[in-house]
């Protein structure tokens, strides 16, 4: 099992943490970034997944 990763929204800085998921839009804790639906969007500024990048 690899560690959970974090992805940051390039527009507003929101962080998607795989460990936490995104409760409000029904993404369960532990959901991998690849498994987040393509039409999911940043809960804070509305932009799409393509605006996110891996946080290292």
């Amino acid at each position, binding site marked *: 099992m690899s560690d959970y990763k974090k992805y940051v929204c*390039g*527009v*507003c*800085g*929101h962080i998607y943490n795989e460990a936490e998921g995104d409760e409000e839009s029904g993404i369960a804790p532990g959901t991998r970034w690849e498994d987040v639906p393509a039409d999911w*969007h940043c*809960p*804070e*500024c*509305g*932009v799409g997944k393509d*605006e996110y990048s891996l946080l290292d």
Partner: protein
Amino acid sequence: MRVIIIGSGVAGVSFAEKFRSHSKDDEITLITKENDGYYSRPLLSRGFSKNDIEQSIILKPFDKLRASGINVISGAEITSIDRGDKSVAITGPSQEKSIHYDKLVVATGSSAFIPPPFMPYNALFFCLNSLVDLKALRKFRQGLLNQNRRPEWAIIGGGLIGCEVASDLAVSGDNVTLFHAMDRLMERQLVAEDSALLLEVLKNSGVNVLLNQNVHGFAKQENKVCVKTDMTTEFDALIVSCGFKPRTELAGLAGLEVGRGIKVNQFMQTSDESIYALGDVAELPNGKLYAFILPIRSQAHWLAGFLAGQEQQSWTPPVFTTKAKVHGFEAVHPYNL
């Protein structure tokens, strides 16, 4: 206690939701001019390339906020603040004409800044500052597309928003000319090297970028509008994007201390101890306005905790970055914010 919030942008809504989660008993009323719900302003600059934008831009309908215990009065405007009896005057659908507050949070945001020489021509140009603006622009554009015409736009101002809008219209297939007063794009945020890169990206997407332009006025000519520099050039429509102007009028009339924004201390408190300001409209003691989503949410969440008695230390700005939403552009160096 009754808390009144003016404005349903990211500042007002983030504060209301966080404060609701801290406090079960306080009464929270949010009053806003908007009718469409809480929407994403950053997405305005993707308003042409995304077809479903008028729906997808809504982050939360007002009914959803109401369901969580926030009393939202939409389509209404606060016209004055009476600090003597701690009330605000309201016009619109509400029965009440005046509402008492114990604490008032001013989150009135900002409008587009119109340089004074352009003001006499305000019937000749559009701005892109709100969802209402975007809908008007999209309707106009659709009218031209319906006649099989390819819209010809002039964008006045090559700052963050001007570059974003120019890019979005160009990738949507329109003809775009961008007039900028300076010798490089986004000179306030970008180092020269990144400005040059941005110029290349915009040119490659078909934008005609004109630097060092002294635009001194506009004119109407039949169904075209003209931009006047040394020469006069015709377009279907113009968008002025020359920065933003905090909406400080209410606070100013109420005698609060106002600079570029409403002056607040490190506790987001104005010169009246019952009144706070957040977001684009708030000017911190260092003279800064934090007009970006991330620091505004931080201010709003901090104030909610503070008013709920859970926060003692003053607000400190978080580290944050931003990014011009120009299709295909990635700056090499950090932005200057």
